[in-house]
């Protein structure tokens, strides 16, 4: 199963060109969609989940145009939108039951069993009968993923799922997604939190201002930054100068001054040691240096 995105463009009535000629192919497993706010991630997501029609281009799932086969696509879809906080007056289980029923689960007994299984899986069984509105932010997110999972969807789209979650919740959430990705499903994860991608995705794409600027594995992205991340021990006076000249990606106070990491195309003028970049370093390097180079080119 794969998603093919071909020459996808989205222009809003206010003239905002949200997606520009996006071409992308996504296979099974978890795929991360990374990019700053306003990069076009949500637009792409909304087109994929048939909430929006693209201005031009197409999205094919297993060769099937989603605009022509919305019914089919929707029957295999689980979707968790970015702002999944407000509920009508339904209990936790009722919300899942509603989703399950709309996902085609007609047998009430089987549906209730599935609801309870999913609630257990996401750790919400204890609050089964609580009003969904009264769940904590993390619980709501877990309820969101549970409803996205109900009905055994083949395509799961999660938009900014970890925003606003505490570290524990975030880890728990990543684990749930990781477990899911072992099944024969596509999980499309849109985020601007780089850590979400590194820990879970085997493939990723980077969007910036509506354009696809990177496509590949997280490791590939990291590879771009190799040799461009440096660690420096600086006095306060030197720190100011470094800050002026380089992209500082982390700063730690130490006895003699500051322990600083920077990204740079060339080694800095100060005494430094090269460090192996992680995906966040790679993302910053890519966005701040690589992309600038592309643009200049």
């Amino acid at each position, binding site marked *: 199963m794969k998603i093919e995105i071909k020459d996808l463009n989205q222009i809003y009535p206010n003239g905002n060109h949200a997606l520009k000629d996006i071409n992308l192919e996504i296979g099974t497993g978890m795929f991360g969609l990374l990019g700053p706010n306003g990069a076009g991630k949500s637009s792409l997501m909304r087109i994929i*989940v*048939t*909430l*929006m*029609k693209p201005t031009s281009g197409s999205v094919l799932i297993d060769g099937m145009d989603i*605009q022509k086969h*919305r*019914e*089919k696509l*929707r*029957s295999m*879809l689980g*979707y*968790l*939108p*970015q*702002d*999944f*906080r*407000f*509920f*009508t*007056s*339904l209990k936790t289980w*009722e919300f899942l039951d*509603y*989703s399950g*029923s*709309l*996902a*085609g689960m*007609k047998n009430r007994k089987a549906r209730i069993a599935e609801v309870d299984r999913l609630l257990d899986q996401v750790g919400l069984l204890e609050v089964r009968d609580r009003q969904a509105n009264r769940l904590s932010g993390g619980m709501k997110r877990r309820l*969101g993923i549970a*409803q*996205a999972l109900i009905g055994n969807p083949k395509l799961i789209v999660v938009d900014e799922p970890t925003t606003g979650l505490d570290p524990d919740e975030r880890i728990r959430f990543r684990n749930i997604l990781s477990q899911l990705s072992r099944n024969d499903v596509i999980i499309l994860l849109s985020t601007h939190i780089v850590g979400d991608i590194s820990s879970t995705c085997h493939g990723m794409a980077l969007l910036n201002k509506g354009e696809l600027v990177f496509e590949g594995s997280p490791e590939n992205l990291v590879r771009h930054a190799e040799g461009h991340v440096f660690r420096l021990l600086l006095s306060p006076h030197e720190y100011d100068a470094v800050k002026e000249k380089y992209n500082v990606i982390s700063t730690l106070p130490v006895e003699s001054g500051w322990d600083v990491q920077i990204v740079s195309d060339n080694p800095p003028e100060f005494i430094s040691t090269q460090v192996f970049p992680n995906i966040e370093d790679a993302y910053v390097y890519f966005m701040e240096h690589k992309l600038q180079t592309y643009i200049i080119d």
Partner: protein
Amino acid sequence: MSFLHNAGTVARYEAKTLRRSWFFRLFSLGALVIFTFMNIGVFIADESWELVSISSSVPLVNLYLLNIGQAIVVIFLAADFLKRDKKLDTNEVLYTRSISNFEYVLGKTWGIIRLFLGLNLIILGIGLIINIISKKMSVDIMAYFEYLLIITLPTIIFSLGLAFLLMSLIKNQAVTFLILLGIAALDMFWLWFRVGSIFDYMAFGLPIFKSGIIGFDNPEVIINQRLLYFFSGMALVMGTVLLFKRLPQSSLHTILAIVFLAVSLAAAVFFGLNTYSIHRDKSDAKKAVTEANRIFEDRRFPVVKEASIELIHRGESIEASANLKITNDNGEPLDYYLFSLNPSLTVNKITAGNISLQYSRTNHIIEIVPSSKLLSGESDSLTITYAGSINESFCSPNYSDNIKENRYRIAMLNVNKRQSFLNDKYLLLTPETHWYPVASLNYYPSNPARIKIDFTKYSLRVKTKENLTPVSQGRQTSDTNWYSFLPENPLTGLTLAIGNYRSDTLTVDSVVYITHYFPGNDYYKKDLSELKDTLPFLVSGIMRDLETSFSTRYPFRTLTLLEVPVQFYSYPKNSTQTRAEVQPGMILLPEKLSTLDNSGFSRRFESQKKRMARNNQVITDKELQVRLFNDFIRNTFISGVNSLFTRNGVYNEPSRYLLGPSFYFYKNNFHSAEYPVINAVFESHLQQLVQQGPPDRYSSMMGNLTDNDKANLVLKEHSLKDLLADNPSGDTIRVVIAVKGDWLFNLLRSKAGIEEFNTWFSKYCDDHRFERIDMLQFRDDIMNMFHFDFYPYLADWFNGKEQPGFIFSDLKANEIILEERSRYLVSFIAANHEKVPGLFNIAFRSEGQGAPGRRGQQMSGAFQPSGGGPGGRTMQGRGMETSDILRIVFLDSGETKKISLLTDVQPRGMMINTLFAKNIPGEINMPLNEILKAKINTGKISEEVEITAEPLQFSAPSEIITDNEDEGFKSGNQITASPLKRLFGITNRRSNTYMQISQWNVPEYWQPVVLTSYFGKYIRSAVYTRAGTGDKAIEWNTLIKDQGYYDVYCFVGKNAERMTIRDERGGGQGGAPGPDRERQEDSRFKDFHYKVFHDEGSDEITLDYENADAGWNNIGRYYFSPDTARVVLTNQSAGRLVIGDAIKWVKVE
């Protein structure tokens, strides 16, 4: 199946969500509490007999009231649904599910509908339990379902659809709310009665009352109108599916939505057109009748002397033949015979002997060409064979189909007004339907007061189904399948009812009283079970009272009380006081007496019993039942009135069941070709003699003028003839005819003598019973008897616009010794300076006397002007027959008379009624505060002495007076309406008409009001307003010709006394006790702030109302040069009201 599953899922959770919303919970809880209490209060405590009596009213009242609430709540919930969907990203997870927009929107719709249906069912369940528990009611289980389908379902679907669609289009919840609430308000306040209720989407005014006898009487209207909104709602929902902001997924469902939209729209248009065409057909039918009447109103009709009618009831139609014996009393030969027959009855054949006659039909008019001319005074016979149904629009062509006009309601529910019934199970045909050929028009467009009456000797043969019983006037016989009726006397019309009737008979004083009722509807027998033995005496007493009032015997041998469906209603006519509910020897009563006051006997019994026990009064059950029975009979058949609230105020419509017409209208007829209003005038005047009920409480409290004053104001501008031709709406013609009748009869009495005329006239009417009397013959008979020709007065009376006007002065009262007896001599001068002669009558109010008892009636609490102490206030305005009238004075044009009257009892005040005159108010109360004791023997006293010397002056030459009626008075550019009203150009309806001071609505503008104690030559008026900050002012201006000092006076028309009259209902047959009165100042008036402009500037004068004199009050002496002088009064006051009347400048010599 997937459709049902998906839509069902959405519906289930939508309903669940809404059920948990605080708004719906609050509404439901409130509804449950309110409706439970309402049901207990109304149907168990039996608070409203008109509802309790008809079992379908339980579901109707419940659903009707709930529907108004839910129509509003649905708007909020439905408009919220799209907004909520739009606002919550959470809902996007549902939008990405495999469900079509069709399924989703229909699911949402069904979710809301089923929630409300559930609430409706719960409320109905409460109603049903109460219905079952209630001892007085039967259960009409079908009505529960019928009203759910009629009221609830179309309203909710339409409201939902409209809300959905508007929200989809406008996408702004607040604006959508406003529009939807505006539409709901428009329906309830403006649209519900227009164009045959076509716009009434929530069935707010649609007449859907279901009779216990015939069920729904207008299913065609109800079905079409409700299906219009059901399908409109469906179309709107389908429109919402297509406009729904979510990418569709099923082309099949999209096509389905389009197909359903088209089908629903087509159905809505179809049913809408049907609804409209029903309305249009009715108004077209009325137009056609009026047009035909207009063509034939000046043509001559024969007189039907005998009519033998044979009728076969064939379900929804009749087959009939009428054998008519006619005469020609037109004074010239008739070369055609004109008859009127209901336009839905088709004439099959007309024969005379064995010869077929040629005829033509113009709507309802049949014009027959006889074989030879019918000479004046000769007779002819012919037979008309016809068949068909009845067009009820024919009966009242001068009334529109607007249900708001002449509203007929049970509680808050409109009842359909039916003039006839013709179906398989029931038939009711009154003469107003012209179900047999009638030799007159039912309405004369150029003179609605005109009427042609034939006293016809009828005979009737009827054939109907075996299980149905026909009822009509006269002695009934039957053979095989035919029933025959033979009335003993000639009648003005014949009524036929056929139904599953039962009957009871009671003979009292040779009159046979027959009640015809439907099975189970004779509950009153049980409620008034104690009356069994007493009933003949009660009936006899009541009838004797009536006969005494009319000075004649009841003219028929039978009095039939016929139960008819509650929808039966007749419109008032200007040509007669009678309504179709009262026929010769027959009264048509609503089923279970539901709409009649005082008819819930058992409830009234219980409550009165309790009240009496509280007051330690002892009364036996029998006495109480006698009282209830008397109350009912008097309020229904003798003196009942219904207060009708209209845009122009309140007026009292006499009960539709008054027996009075049987004593005149169905017995006598005065005819005048020259003055075709004469019968209506005679009837109106004679009818009022027993109708003269209590003063109109609501009307008076709301500040409305008396009928006499209203009529005289109208007659200032119009002659009677012009007014009839104009045919104004409302009760204008009725009150004008009454005043004109009073004047005419007082003229006759003034010349013939009150008692002499009354005695003679009663006998005259009896001698001419069941005859048509020509006015010229009446004139001759009057001349022969009283040597007085009233006929010359009729020309002005009918055609003239001029009114007499009276000035009264020099009222004096002396205690004198006359024939060795202490008596009281009251004298005054009266002048009529106008161009036409006039009449007024005089009565006294005496010391310590109660009001003379008048047939058990008592005056009810009304705010009354007066100027004396306790004593009886005679209702002299219309009381021409009563002994209260001491004298009727005739004043010719330009005549001035000194009037002297003697009375044995010390008078406290004199009351004058100017009848037809410029004087407003026409009832003038003159207090007699000072009685000079001149205990000397006086010689002969001249009752009326004409004064030919100085004509009576209204004011002294040295005085300059500006009254509020004069040109010098200015009330400024008054803002008489709110900004919103001004925006829509709605003018204040009362600002230019006279009123009395209102107990309830104090105007924010200067409203002209009339009262005897106010200043004025003919119109004793002032202006008053609500007290304010001084931002509104009135001013009096005059031109000062001679310079010098002047004393300035303002006139204070004080109510030196207010009369509060206790309403003691249920009084006995004797004289009513005198009304309680208390002497009190009107505390609503306090300080008045005048500003007098003079040569040295202006002075502000504060007048304390409490300490002011009644009449002229000096507000200072000022110097004036020859110029315009001015006095201003503002609305500034610490009291509630401010009043301004007249200003007087008196030169200081």
